[in-house]
């Protein structure tokens, strides 16, 4: 287990390092002179020079890279060009909103997917099954940025049940969470159906049936429990898609999270803030994925033993 832990953590550290480097080099993709793009063409040469020095862009690239990593290790991401505030403070303000949205999306996905996937597997090849699978195909095919306006149109504008946007308590969370959670629910339901069908052919399920257990007890205690492993991996992997989707969902609903901050910063050409947001989201994803791997190994001894040896 220890060697498994170490190898996983080492590879996660390497990926974190690589992601940070890639994000560092993003600013050099800005066509032409990034300082001129950020300040505008009519800016004074003196101002440009001042910003160039402030961002360290006048130094050789390896010094820039060292300074950047030094800053990262001290949780110092520099200042916003627009508001002149420390970027770390700006991120901290926005994290709760995005975390709330992502958590709510996850809850929606799990609440929809488990009954749907289980039902589809139990009544395989029935109308229920094809209905559930058709729903899930729809869920995968409807992008967030259309799902959101569609829900707003029905539930806010036509029915008047829920607020259009903003962040005012539970009611304003419902539509963004539904928007974000549907796609994940669709993918998850398919996965639950597939793994459950596989598990239900195992010998221990036949034994449970032979013991005379009810179908419900078999599914709950023996089927779902054993189908959980791949489902957990998928959840970990899909959390990334959830975070990416949260960015677009935030724009649709004017939700004041990291996604909104990123797009605002792109529009204001506040590139240090853009870099910080991208870094935060991708590092969160790496950490979550590593944790998923570890949880998986902890749940299933076969994996840690196989990899450790």
């Amino acid at each position, binding site marked *: 287990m220890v060697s498994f832990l170490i190898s996983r953590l080492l590879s996660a550290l390497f990926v974190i390092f690589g992601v940070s480097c890639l994000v560092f080099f993003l600013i050099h993709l800005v066509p032409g002179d990034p300082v001129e793009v950020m300040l505008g063409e009519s800016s004074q040469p003196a101002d440009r020079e001042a910003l160039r020095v402030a961002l360290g862009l006048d130094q050789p690239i390896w010094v820039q890279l060292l300074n950047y990593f030094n800053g990262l290790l001290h949780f110092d991401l520099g200042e916003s060009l627009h508001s002149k505030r420390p970027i770390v403070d700006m991120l901290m303000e926005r994290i709760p909103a995005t975390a709330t949205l992502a958590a709510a999306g996850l809850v929606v996905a799990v609440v929809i997917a488990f009954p749907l996937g289980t039902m589809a597997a139990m009544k395989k090849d029935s109308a229920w099954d094809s209905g559930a699978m058709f729903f899930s*195909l729809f869920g995968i*095919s409807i992008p967030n940025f259309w799902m959101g306006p569609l829900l707003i149109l029905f539930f806010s504008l036509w029915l008047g049940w829920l607020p259009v946007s903003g962040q005012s308590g539970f009611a304003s969370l419902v539509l963004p969470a539904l928007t974000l959670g549907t796609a994940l629910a669709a993918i998850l339901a398919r996965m639950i159906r597939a793994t459950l069908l596989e598990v239900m052919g195992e010998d221990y399920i036949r034994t449970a049936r032979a013991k005379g257990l009810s179908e419900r007890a078999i599914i709950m205690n023996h089927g779902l429990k054993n189908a959980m492993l791949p489902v957990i991996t998928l959840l970990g992997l899909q959390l990334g898609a959830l975070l990416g989707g949260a960015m677009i969902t935030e724009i649709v609903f004017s939700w004041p999270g990291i996604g909104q901050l990123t797009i605002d910063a792109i529009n204001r050409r506040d590139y240090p803030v*853009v870099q910080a947001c*991208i870094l935060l989201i991708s590092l969160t*994803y790496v950490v979550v*994925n590593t944790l998923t791997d570890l949880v998986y190994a902890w749940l299933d001894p076969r994996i840690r033993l196989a990899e450790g040896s």
Partner: protein
Amino acid sequence: MRLWFPAAIFLLWLVLALFGSLFSLTPDQIELSRILLPPDSHEWFGYDDLGRSMWDRLIVGAQTSFIVSIAVVTISLLVGVTIGSLSAFVGGWFDHLVVRIIDIFLAFPGILLAIALAGLMGPGIDNVVIALCVVGWVGFARLSRAQVMTLKNRDHVQAAIALGAGPARIIFKHLIPLIAAPLIIESTFAIASVVIAEAGLSFLGLGIQPPTPSWGSMIRDGTRYMLVAPHMVLVPGIALMLVVLSVNLLGDRLRDWLDVRTREQK
């Protein structure tokens, strides 16, 4: 669902994208007298906030999404398969390096890297294609690497090596034909996700720039007039959904038909 429905939608998309310009389209013609007019028997899809024909804009939007998705999938496929199969075939430190690079690219969730790239490089169709290719090659590289790994010890490959064939010949003559089926299926699903990604970037204002229509930017324009002109958000959205749904259905069918049992989990 029967195959004719997705096939018909896909063909319609294809035909409109390829031959749409044969119609006399005026997607940019502003006509103030018909601003926000709803669909009627004359103009099936109504007019937008500048009085432009939604039908004309929809067709040009179909061209946009078609061009972008074909370009992105083709480039990603070529780059990804070359890197992935070479990596598996050569092995050693090169393979390690490629796997690490793939891991790093996969650490950017979903559309995030494309948003960052398109945001920093500036909008425009070229930059959208570049941004989506940077994200897109990874899936193909991973898939072809995994496939070649399982194939490279087959007898016919070993025989080719023994006969002195070079890596390029072995990869293109002896390996890629065997992994074509999963690659075709992956490409189909990739088309669906690129269509969504292009529309997503354009929705965020980072993709195709006005006045050129894209389904994504049409949806964004529509969200401002939802109460008075819901058709502005419904029309491009339904088109987008139907195309993506059809491509996904065709991909599913193709997978059953070509009998590829183990598609990599995304």
